[in-house]
């Protein structure tokens, strides 16, 4: 089983028009920054250079923010399927093995014979492990 599904659908596709606008804004913002630098070299136009610089930074910030948000939307649209573990045990000798879940597994199902004593083993546990991402208790009570 894959960790995440990333099938293309109407909801995950980003409009090419939106992307075009983002990249045009980005290009204009970069041009504004270059212009600001060239204007700054002339003492007469230093005042205007500041405004071009401001405009360039605003354009750059806006386009990167929108681009980042678009990417975040695609990431958010994935359905996470965590790995599921199946534990198999031999009730006679206590031999234990852990493997990935397979379709048809269920708790207390009899499976293949034990490698040590040849007794039928049973599935004793099926679960998923969750790793809490950066969980810091903000409220200590």
């Amino acid at each position, binding site marked *: 089983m894959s960790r995440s599904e990333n099938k293309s659908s109407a909801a995950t596709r980003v409009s090419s028009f939106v992307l075009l606008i983002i990249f045009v804004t980005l290009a204009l913002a970069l041009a504004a920054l270059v*212009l600001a630098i060239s*204007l700054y070299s002339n003492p007469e136009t230093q005042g205007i250079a500041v405004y071009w610089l401001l405009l360039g930074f605003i354009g750059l910030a806006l386009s990167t923010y929108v681009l980042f948000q678009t990417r975040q939307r695609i990431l958010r649209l994935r359905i996470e399927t965590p790995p599921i573990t199946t534990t198999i045990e031999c009730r006679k000798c206590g031999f234990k093995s852990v493997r990935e879940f397979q379709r048809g*597994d269920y708790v207390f199902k009899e499976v293949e014979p034990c490698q040590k004593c040849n007794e039928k083993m049973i599935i004793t546990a*099926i*679960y998923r492990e969750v790793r809490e991402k950066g969980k810091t208790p903000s409220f200590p009570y």
Partner: protein
Amino acid sequence: MLVFRKGESVNLVAALTVLKEQLIQMGDLLPGGDIFSQILTLIIYAFIFISIFYGQRIQLYIMLREVEGSLYKLKYIRDEGRRIAIETIKEIGKPQTDPTARVDRFLEYFTISPQSLDPAGIVWKLEHILDVRDARFKDEVRLLAPAADETQANNLENTLEAAMALNYIYKVIRHYYLLGKKTLSLYIIMQIQMILPLVMREAEAYASALKAFAYGQPIGDGVGALVAAKLMHGHPVRKVPKDCVVAEVPFEGRTAYVIKAEGPGGNVGKPGDAIKTIIEENEGKIANIIMIDAALKLEGEDVGEVAEGVGAAIGGPGVDQFKIEETILKYRIPINAVIIKEDIGDAVSPMRKEIFEAADKAIERIRQVILERTKEGDKVIIAGVGNTIGIGQ
């Protein structure tokens, strides 16, 4: 770009210098400092004007945009649910024809709850409606997936129900979004925007449930059934109405009738009927009933926390709880409950390790209750409630 060419760059600089001079001349005509501070003042005035007259509308559009973003996600989850359901049916059920049209029809099914103007006898009416719904779903699954065995058919039924729930959530949110957009009513949009985080949580939980149902993996809600399965494993079991199994287990010198829904297919059974049957078989001579179920935790509580109390620990529409309460009242049987705490996401997604391990803690708690509340030789009922998908007996 013009600026990259040396000659044209100079021209542009000259043009900008002229523009600046013109702006300064314009600024001289207006009172109050240089042109840039005047432009800034004008912008501030414009901002205040827009905030006063269009503030609410801007807020509305921001909210609409937020709802739209969530709606995209809901649509994606809904489509994925439908796709998984169709793929699983094709894989397991081996239908002769394409099941897509039938699945689409299934996703639109609805159930009308009975009239409650005169509430007397409503439980039986509700039970009948739910039975009809259940039978109809089972028939549909049989038609959709003729090659599926009973366990697989139950799992498919659960998968379709999860897909149905996602379809319904998406449609309701879309309805309010479009209604808000059409009427431009802040209050319609506000209501939906406020409950959106909870709705999204539920939808995400159903999305992770889909795979669990399709593959037949145990889910968090099945922890009650897991406790019962652990207690009855290795003892002879027999079927009891409806879709449940019972095993007579010697437990601390008492006889425990351990009940759970019949697994490993996705099934909750009717524990109400099963408990009633066992009580009547024993002519009411039951010393205690202990029910084990998963319960929603409050934020701040740990997943897999075990708590104990009294009453019938069973969710659902209330029919089974009503039946259990009626029967125990008739015979005056005390009832205890052991619950395992988890959130909505954990309840319908593959079982977490913490919840699986909590089953042993719950068994210990049951042992304590039995030792404290009953005498040796007594008969007790231990009922593990919940969806038994992926859990045998």
